[in-house]
Structure formats: C-alpha cells, structure tokens
C-alpha cells in the first residue's frame, strides 16, 4: 500500500499543553503497513507506573508484540520514548530511549541517546512514538506541533547521516529540525547498526538501526514549539540550583576532558581490554587520551539540551590522507577503547576517523570494535581463509577498511555484519574461546576480569552486555562516590570491596540497577551525580505526584522485572545468564594479572541474585514478587 503523503493531526493539540505537568498524555502510533496513525492517551497511573523510556518500551513489547517474532520482520515494534523528566529544565534530561526486540541478541534492545530529539518530540506534543509494520518503500516521518506526515525517503536511501540531515532540513526549510535516523548500516540491516540523532548521538547498542532499516523507515524529523510544563517550578529549581552550583566540582572530569580523559587511567588500572583481551599493557595508549589528542584535533565542545557540562567533543582533522568532519562530533571513552586498544591501534587519527565513519554509517562503535578485534585474532590464528582482505591487529588502515566492508557487507564484512558470536558459530572451535560477549552482544570497555560485579551485570543484562545500566565496581570502592551516596540512602554499607562478588555487592547491584533503570525511563544522563532524593524532588516537581525514594526504587524494580519477563517470553533461560570465554581468561602480566572470576563463581553469584530478587532458581520472578510490583506472568 502506498502510504506516502498520508497525514495525521492529533486532536486537542493545544489543550494538552497546559504547562501544568511535564508530559502531554499522548503517545503517537504509526502503522507503516497501511499508514494508519492514531494516539494512545494513557491514564495517569500508566505514567506513574512506567515513567517513560525503557518502561514504555517494555509495556508495548510485552503487551502488543507476539512472542517469538522475527526482530527484522514487520511485527517487531520500534519505540522512541523520552520520559516524564525529559526536556524539563533539569540538567541531564536532554535524553530519550529507543527500543525494540533486538536482532543481535533476540532479547531487549533499549538504548538511550542524548541531544535534543527527545525534548523536541515532547515540544511537538508527544511523549513517545510507537512504530509497527513495514513500509513498502523508504519513508520518513515529519512531526511538527502535533501534525504528522509520511514522506518519501527514496532520495535519502544510501546517504550518510550527515547528508540525510542536510537534505531533510533543506527540503523542510528549517535548520532547527531534530532528526532520528539510520545510515547505510541500518539500511543494510547490519545487526549492530545504531539509530543516530543529530547525526552524532547514538542509541547505539543491540541493532536498533537494523530494526528501523527493516521497516524502511529512514528518519523521524521533529519540530515542536510548546514548552515542557512543570507542576512545581520552585521545587524543580531547588534541584536545578543544587546541580548548577556543584557540577564543576562533582563532574570536573566531564567538564575538563569528557570521558576521553579516562583512557590512560582506565588502561593503567586494567579497566580496558587490549588486543581482544590477550594483553595486559598497551604501549602508546596515552596517544588516545584527550590530554594528547586534544591539541591535534579538538575543535570545540558540544552538549545536550539544558546541560552545562559540555562533555561532548567536536574534532576536526585534515592532512594529505585523512579528513575528519567536525559535524560528526568526536570519539568518547567506549569508542576510543573499542577502536583503539581492543584492536591494538594507538593512532588517534585512525581511531577518530573510524569513529566518524561509524557516525556517518550509523554503527554501534562498541560492537564494531569488538567484532573487528575478534576478526583480527581469528585472522592472526589462521582461522579465516579465502578472503581478499582481513584486518590485522595494530593496523589503523585495516580498522577503517573493515568498517567500510561491514556496511557494504562485502567479503569478510558480510560475516562481521552479523556480530562476533554468529561468526564464532560459523567458524567453529577454537573461535568460541576468543569471544567476548554476553547474550551475543560485544562487551563494553569495562573489563569484567577487573570489574567483576559489572561482569555479573553484563551476564544478567536484558539488553546484552551493558555498562550503563549496571554497577561498575570501582565507582563504589572509594568513600563519598555518587554510587556510595545512593547505596547509603538504602542503608547499605559502603564502600564496597573491589574484588569478587560478595552478598553486599549483590545487594548494592540491585539498588543501583533499580536507580539506573529509573534513570533510563525518566530519561536522565547517568553522568549526573543525582541521588534518590534528587529524583524524588524532580519527579514530584514534574508531575505533582507526592513520591518517595521507595517509589523511585519500586519503579526501577518493576521495569527490571518486566525486562526479565520479556527475556523469559522470548525463550531465554538461566543458562543464558553468562559470559563467553574471554571474560574468564587470566592474563599473565599487567595490572590485573591472574584476576578473573571462574564460571562457577559467576553462576553462584547469579543464583544468589535471583533469590534476592524474589526469582526462582531458573531466574523466573515468583508470583508474589510480581504481585508486589503490580505485574503478572504471561
């Protein structure tokens, strides 16, 4: 069915923007099979139970998508969801979530991105956009102040994110339009393609870009003019004033260098995996640290809506051989680690160019680095033959060539586009020994051999290995850290021991993941040192509800359990809550020599976690646990 040109105007657009609360009460629905559009108008209880972001994503996946669907088929549901706090005056709320069933993991895909897109969507009158079906030909959505139009994207298909943004802004005649989109990687359904926002902010992980590509949806362009309301401006200004007064002290690291300033420190303490987890020390790593590469290529700093910190980088570089465009931002810690030490590349220009390509093509940089490093090791060990090109450890030009080939699905690139876990299955032993994944998703650059509780978090994560919705051990091992402050609000002893997974650390993980899950639903940047108390005030101020720290915790726990129900429904079992072989491989030298959990230790810790969550030995939430959270099984 030809759906191009179909339009929709939400009823009562002005009426809902009364400025008295931070959500509009309307969720836009779009069926790309037939172009039908409508709005859901959930009641207040829906918002209070789920908040937005990941909560909304799981609501639609659990209630409207049948179990077992093909993630790249029309039945998958793609949700773009800011949260109740997104777009408010509170610093850190320039953020929204994107979710679907993941084609990489078969589990939940739920990623958050900064920038302005989520704020703009709320200013245009919608708390979320829920997409189902598949368009016959490439389309994009244009949402402006409650009005929606389905437009052809035939002329945009194949274009980079930067060029697509330029063309859409030109044809709609407004440079301030905010755009969520896929690049050529999403079009090609690379299993770790990202959804990009403002061309350099990724909802990166788990292949959300491939889902968008499978729907023939190139972009969602948004422009809104209504302010996001507040129930209690004075209360919100208390939290706002606290952070504005303290952020330079509490987030000095982000102000000074952003996460790019942590490359050397993370390496020196053993936090960054090197040469696909084989080495303990990487010569020349400091060249990838902000302190050394800023003078070579830093052009500017960038930020998200209402954020004074400006942790984002804008790099630019030009010489005879390499041009790096500043419009694609710059590499941050995870990217520097994945495309640098993990691939044994210490050339900052090659890594920054690889980052630019990932943004232009719309690729998750963590999985891109992970799969290239895995391929480099397979190539070095002679497990791959018959290809005209294979990447080599330490070779920046082969890193860059790999990215081009992944997106073109050419030669070894066609294999890499499936992710390292599927490659290992095809190659067979001993490739499985070289894998660093959880639920088939490549591990972030927080080495689980050092950060062992974080490793348990990778194994348990409903979205595959994830460092954000997690507790990173060394953030809670020193008194006075923001993580310690949050744990103390729930009466836990701090600081935590650095090594191993004790009862105390599991209890701490449960509290911290509930908090992070609230943050990913509200939706707020994890870098801000907010505590439960701050969230109590912010949520009350945004909505007029009288909430408590216990309610914030319960919202997080509810959504964690919804994610668990989703995993179970999609066929995952306790056996899937694990890590691949490289997470247990002990190094002979370097700062974490001899350190790693054993698989048995990890399994025991996970069983203890299940019990503390009110789940049975198979990791299934008990009827009583679900009842307490207002949920039901199946």
């Amino acid at each position, binding site marked *: 069915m030809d759906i191009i040109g179909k339009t929709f105007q939400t009823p009562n657009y002005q009426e809902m923007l009364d400025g008295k609360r931070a959500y509009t009460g309307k969720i836009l629905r779009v069926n790309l099979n037939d172009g039908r559009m409508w709005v859901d108008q959930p009641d207040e209880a829906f918002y209070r139970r789920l908040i937005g972001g990941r909560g909304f994503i799981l609501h639609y996946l659990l209630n409207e998508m049948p179990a077992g669907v093909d993630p790249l088929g029309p039945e998958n549901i793609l949700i773009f969801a800011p949260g109740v706090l997104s777009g408010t005056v509170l610093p850190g709320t320039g953020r929204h979530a994107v979710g679907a069933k993941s084609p990489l993991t078969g589990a939940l895909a739920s990623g958050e991105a900064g920038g302005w897109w989520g704020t703009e969507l709320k200013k245009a009158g919608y708390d979320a956009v829920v997409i189902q079906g598949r368009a016959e030909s490439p389309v994009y959505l244009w949402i402006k102040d409650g009005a929606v139009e389905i437009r052809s994207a035939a002329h945009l298909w194949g274009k980079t994110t930067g060029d697509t943004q330029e063309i859409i802004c030109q044809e709609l005649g407004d440079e301030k339009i905010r755009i969520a989109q896929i690049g050529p990687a999403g079009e090609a359904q690379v299993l770790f393609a990202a959804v990009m926002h403002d061309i350099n902010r990724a909802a990166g992980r788990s292949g959300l870009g491939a889902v968008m590509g499978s729907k023939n949806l190139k972009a969602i362009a948004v422009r809104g003019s209504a302010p996001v309301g507040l129930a209690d401006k004075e209360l919100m200004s208390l939290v706002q004033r606290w952070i504005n007064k303290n952020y330079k*002290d509490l987030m000095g*690291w982000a102000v000074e260098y952003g996460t790019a*300033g942590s490359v050397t*420190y993370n390496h020196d*303490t053993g936090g960054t995996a090197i040469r696909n987890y084989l080495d303990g020390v990487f010569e020349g790593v400091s060249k990838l640290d902000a302190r050394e590469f800023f003078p070579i290529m830093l052009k500017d700093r960038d930020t998200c809506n209402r954020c004074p910190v400006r942790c984002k980088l804008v790099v630019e570089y030009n010489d005879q051989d390499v041009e790096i465009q500043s419009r694609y931002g710059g590499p941050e810690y995870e990217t520097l680690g994945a495309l640098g030490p993990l691939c044994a590349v210490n050339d900052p220009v090659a890594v920054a160019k690889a980052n630019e390509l990932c943004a232009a093509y719309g690729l998750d940089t963590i999985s891109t680095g992970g799969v290239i490093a895995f391929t480099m090791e397979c190539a070095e060990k002679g497990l791959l033959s018959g290809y005209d090109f294979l990447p080599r450890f330490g070779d920046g030009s082969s890193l860059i060539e790999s990215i081009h080939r992944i997106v073109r699905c050419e030669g070894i690139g066609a294999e890499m586009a499936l992710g390292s876990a599927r490659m290992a299955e095809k190659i067979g032993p001993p490739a499985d020994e070289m894998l660093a994944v959880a639920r088939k998703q490549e591990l972030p650059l927080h080495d689980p051999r050092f950060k062992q509780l974080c490793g348990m978090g990778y194994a348990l994560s409903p979205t595959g290995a994830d460092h954000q919705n997690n507790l990173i051990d060394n*953030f809670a*091992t020193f008194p006075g850290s923001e993580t310690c402050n949050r744990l103390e609000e729930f009466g836990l002893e701090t600081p935590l021991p*650095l090594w191993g997974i004790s009862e105390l650390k599991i209890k701490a993980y449960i509290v911290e993941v509930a908090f992070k899950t609230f943050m990913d639903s509200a939706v707020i940047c994890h870098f801000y040192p907010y505590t439960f108390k701050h969230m109590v005030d912010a949520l009350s101020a945004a909505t007029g509800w009288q909430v408590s720290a216990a309610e914030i915790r319960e919202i997080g726990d509810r959504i964690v359990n919804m994610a668990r129900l989703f995993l179970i429904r999609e066929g995952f079992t306790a056996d899937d809550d694990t890590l691949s072989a490289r997470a247990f491989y002990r190094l002979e030298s370097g700062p974490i020599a001899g350190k790693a959990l054993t698989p048995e230790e990890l399994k025991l810790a996970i069983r203890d976690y299940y019990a503390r969550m009110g789940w049975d030995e198979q990791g299934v939430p008990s009827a009583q646990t679900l009842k307490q959270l207002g949920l039901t099984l199946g």
Partner: protein
Amino acid sequence: MEQGKATFLLDPSHTVQKTPREISVAAGQTIMQALNSHGIVFRQPVVALVNGQTCDVSYCLQPGDVVRFFPQIAGG
C-alpha cells in the same frame, strides 16, 4: 626509601589540598588508613596500584610498596 615504610606517589592535581608528589607512609596499615592519617583527600574516587598491580584500598601496606592512584571516571 625509609625502612618499614611504603611510598605514595601522588599527582597534586588530583587532591583537594596541596600535596607533595611523594610521601612515605608506615607499613602495616591499609591504604585507606594511610590516606586518612595523612589527610589526603582526592577530588574524585580513585583506584590504587601497588607495585603495578591494581589493589583495593583495604590492602595492608608492606615495607617497600610503591602506590600510585588513578581517578575513576564513568565510561560512556
């Protein structure tokens, strides 16, 4: 190096107050106890490296240990 002592190597830009780049501390106490007794306060949480190995701050210092400290920054 003094006998029975361990050495802390410090980056003054990481501490709240002015701190020498190198101080000797008594062995037989934990890293955290030694930091507290010398009034060393870091601007942000740190991880300790003892003789090149990453260590918990509850580690009990041995004579001759050389300890360095690294700020811990969230990844993203």
